[in-house]
């Protein structure tokens, strides 16, 4: 399988803070990667480096291009939705479709119009007259009509109601994603992307603290519900996290064998949000 992004020794220094600290990773094609971290962990900086929007030190190869030097060519293969409010407020639906159709070689106008038909958007409508949800619908319709190899989503569903959010990811999975495409998504609403991710990356203080595919995550991290009498035994196995529910303790283990844990109590796969909270403990302290 070909590699879409190769980063090695990526660093970015802002005035006083180190936003990326010697980060290295690889992202193969056909994956949906969740880049998850607390506020200010360096997620957006990493995405901006990939998109060539910011300077950095280290090596970075995106689809065979150096984002610093070949940004224009790179953007023919990459799409991104950075936040809800980036479409210019003065533009009309028909204008933005016209414009993208004429500047983007990989844009399929018929496809875009088909997507737009499914929404309430009118050709003459301006972005400033739309709700946040409608703006994202428009942006998504544009992006899904572009046959890009890499799609980058930075908090795409921020500020949307649950209907739009569900629809957003559903459209993305059903009508867009295939084995030739790669999606990188950052979000705080971890529960929503949990079921669509194939890979997980946790980033904290500019460092990648976890980089694994979801199957590996399921094998490595196990949650056990332990009765009070076995709690001390469980604690000796050095759990990542412990919390109390209905008089029982729930322990989260990293890399402890399944057989051992099954003897302690009922085991299950931890949710990403629990895993996230456990991994990021003490970030803001």
């Amino acid at each position, binding site marked *: 399988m070909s590699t879409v992004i190769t980063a090695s020794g990526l660093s970015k220094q802002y005035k006083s803070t180190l936003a990326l600290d010697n980060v290295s990773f690889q992202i193969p094609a056909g994956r949906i990667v969740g880049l998850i971290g607390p506020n200010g962990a360096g997620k957006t900086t990493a995405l901006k480096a990939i998109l060539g929007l910011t300077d950095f030190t280290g090596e970075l190869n995106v689809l065979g291009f150096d984002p610093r030097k070949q940004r224009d060519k790179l*953007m023919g293969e990459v799409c991104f939705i950075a936040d809800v409010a980036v479409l210019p407020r003065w533009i009309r639906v028909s*204008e933005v479709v016209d414009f993208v159709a004429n*500047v983007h070689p990989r844009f399929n106008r018929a496809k875009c119009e088909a997507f737009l038909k499914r929404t309430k958007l009118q050709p003459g409508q301006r972005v400033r007259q739309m709700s946040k949800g409608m703006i994202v619908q428009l942006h998504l319709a544009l992006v899904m009509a572009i046959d890009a190899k890499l799609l980058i989503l930075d908090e795409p569903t921020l500020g949307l109601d649950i209907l739009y959010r569900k629809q957003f990811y559903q459209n993305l999975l059903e009508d867009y994603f295939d084995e030739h495409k790669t999606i990188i998504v950052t979000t705080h609403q971890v529960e929503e992307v949990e079921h669509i991710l194939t890979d997980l990356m946790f980033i904290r203080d500019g460092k990648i603290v976890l980089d694994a595919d979801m199957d590996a995550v399921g094998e490595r991290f196990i949650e056990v519900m332990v009765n009070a009498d076995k709690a001390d035994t469980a604690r000796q196995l050095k759990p990542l996290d412990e919390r109390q529910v209905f008089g029982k303790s729930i322990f989260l283990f990293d890399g402890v064998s399944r057989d051992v844990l099954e003897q302690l109590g009922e085991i299950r796969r931890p949710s990403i949000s629990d895993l996230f909270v456990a991994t990021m403990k003490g970030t803001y302290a």
Partner: protein
Amino acid sequence: MFWLVKREFWEHRGGFFWAPVITGGVFLLLNIMGIITAEVLGASHGIRFGASGGLQRVIADMDAGDLSKVGMALDVAMYSAMGLLIVVLGFVVFFYCLGALYDDRRDRSIMFWKSLPISDASTVLSKVVSATVLAPVIAVIVGIVVGMLQLLILAITLSFHGVNVWQLLVQAHPFRVMFNLIGYIPLYVLWALPSVGWLLLCSAWARNKPFLWAVALPVATGLLISWFGIMGLFNLPMTWFWENVVQRSLFSVFPGTGSLFGSSLRHSTGNVENLSFMDLGSTYHLLASPDLWIGVLAGAGLLVAAIWFRRWRDDS
């Protein structure tokens, strides 16, 4: 590039198209109001121009020299419509350039534009073309239409007084006026370049308040130089600085300033009597002045800097 410029037009339809149209409309309206006032006042005071063909006789008595003066007056009427539009155009271009690379950074829509496979150089150049070609072309077209309407209004008014309109109109040179105005555009592109470059650079560079930076920087430097000059220190070329740096960086977007404080008028062979200083042969004397070409070079340099800032400015 066509679509990039079209995009600029969509965004700035108000400034590029409606501003000259509305200005032209107001100009015509004021003229009509003026004519009506004159007619009403004239009628109430019992003054009756040419009711018995008197005015027509006056014209018939004029010799060729007088008639050409009438033609010139009509040409002036056409130019005057343009004059007002030119001032408006100057302001539109000035503020357009200041906002062109700043507004989308402020509302973060730059993230959308940058997600498209368009180089930063073509983005910046599309804005230069919009400012120096698109905006003046629209203004000139509107100006010509307004000028024609103006002539028509004068002609109709006069014809009410029994004056043979066509006899007068053949004395005007509407096509020469048109030709001069259209022909001036390429010169404007070159002359405006340092201003456009400087304003776009400020627009791409300033983190906030590009207007303040764009105006304050050259003016403050000028004041500093003048201050040293007054104290007799360093013997810096203060007049030169004000004329060639401050004026060129801020006011060259106003069309016609090339002929005003450029060197062309001083060496102009043109003759104010018959408006020939507006002829291309005379306006294009500017091409011979080093001021123009130095300005073009400086403008190109400023644009390169603007492109660089557009590429690397990272403030989101």
